[in-house]
């Protein structure tokens, strides 16, 4: 049984977590979801970006935090090469000069059932900040990078001087940059913040799991190979150890569609990710097929759901997004 001291300590830590700069910075983010995998190269970032863009197309306000410190790929796939800009804190109520909201969040019929009128002040809460900006540094913020696809984004590439220079940071420094992104970015009002994690269960993953208050859960991306699903088991167990819900397993590169007849070819065998989901008693979110267009689109900096909106990949991602929206919404209702 916990001693009085332990309970007091827990209460103190809970209070601190709720009132931390990170908690305050994310206070208007409805759902926070991390995407991870045990193994690298399973298409985690591609899945994250396309899910985010699909959610944005449905009218949600979405941002991605690229927490892959050593191999950030979100900017490339989103075609977003800019650097972070300091929020317009010296002009209370003003707009950030760099912000490019063209084509941003057009849909009134949005996925979350709220009527978002997307004026910038509402989205980024400048009106709210107007009262707060003062002489102290508490409200100094960076604006996330706007992309043409209605998804905001932050990555190490957004602050790193050149794409060619390697990031040589060890544990605490990786923790530091992720926590600084969480606390100093003007995330504003969001329906979804997706966090793209590097493979494995290293510093970045543990930092995200332990730093984001009210993390809705994790999506596990796997390919239908034993080598991937085995490592995913470890990743899922890590999340369970830390009491982070698993929203489900997403199978990527499930089949290759023949470019001529669209006949499915099982590249890696039978649905082992689905078996993994059953075995670990978590949901199976769906399968994304492998198509040459995915890679071509990513290289061109245009998400495949934009570039090939009628493709099988885009349709499957749309189904997964719908499932996810309903899952997190129902989870929220369960808590109430």
């Amino acid at each position: 049984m916990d001693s009085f001291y332990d309970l007091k300590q827990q209460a103190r830590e809970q209070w601190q977590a709720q009132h931390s700069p990170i908690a305050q910075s994310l206070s208007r983010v409805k759902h926070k979801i991390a995407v991870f995998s045990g193994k690298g190269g399973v298409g985690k970032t591609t899945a994250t970006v396309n899910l985010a863009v699909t959610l944005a197309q449905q009218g949600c306000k979405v941002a991605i935090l690229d927490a892959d410190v050593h191999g950030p790929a979100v900017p490339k796939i989103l075609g977003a090469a800019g650097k972070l800009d300091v929020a317009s804190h010296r002009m209370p109520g003003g707009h950030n000069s760099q912000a490019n909201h063209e084509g941003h969040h057009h849909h009134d019929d949005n996925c979350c059932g709220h009527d978002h009128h997307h004026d910038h002040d509402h989205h980024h809460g400048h009106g709210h900040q107007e009262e707060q900006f003062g002489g102290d540094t508490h409200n100094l913020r960076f604006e996330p990078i706007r992309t043409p696809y209605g998804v905001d984004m932050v990555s190490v590439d957004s602050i790193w001087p050149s794409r060619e220079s390697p990031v040589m940071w060890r544990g605490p420094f990786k923790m530091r940059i992720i926590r600084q992104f969480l606390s100093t970015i003007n995330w504003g009002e969001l329906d979804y913040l997706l966090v793209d994690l590097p493979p494995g269960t290293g510093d970045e993953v543990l930092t995200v799991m332990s730093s984001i208050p009210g993390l809705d859960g994790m999506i596990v991306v796997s390919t239908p190979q034993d080598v991937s699903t085995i490592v995913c088991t470890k990743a899922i167990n890590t999340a369970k150890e830390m009491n982070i819900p698993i929203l489900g397993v997403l199978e990527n590169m499930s089949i290759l569609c023949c470019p001529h007849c669209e006949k499915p070819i099982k590249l890696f065998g039978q649905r082992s990710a689905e078996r993994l989901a059953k075995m670990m008693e978590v949901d199976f979110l769906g399968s994304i097929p492998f198509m040459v267009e995915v890679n071509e689109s990513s290289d061109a900096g245009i998400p495949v759901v934009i570039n090939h909106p009628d493709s099988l990949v885009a349709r499957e991602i749309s189904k997964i997004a719908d499932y996810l929206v309903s899952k997190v919404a129902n989870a929220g209702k369960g808590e109430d």
Partner: protein
Amino acid sequence: MKSRNTGIDDLVKEGMEAAIQARELIWKFTTLQINQAEFVQELEDVHAKRIIFDNWDDFQHNEAIYPCLEIFQVIYSIAEDVDYQIRYYGLDSLREDIKQLDMSIKILKRYLGQESNLNLSSKACKCH
């Protein structure tokens, strides 16, 4: 001789001075000469966050002074997040930060192209 931006040089010197001060504070804190509240307060007095934001464009457009940004990031992070760092990485991780600060100072000294008059040796950390 290549002309240099004196504003940038001043920023670099400010970064080096802050790094020296920070590593001394870390040393004092990890050897229990000052308590956590004093440690955090002294680091906050560096105003690292303000410096980062005020000089953001310079940091982004001048790769050579990136270590200066890293110095202020370390100081800002420790000031704001020392509880988290100690809980997950232990007190010794702060001494790792001293090494990081030292490395940044070394690179910045090279950037300034001169032996710094900041008297680094007399304030060298006693922990290694």
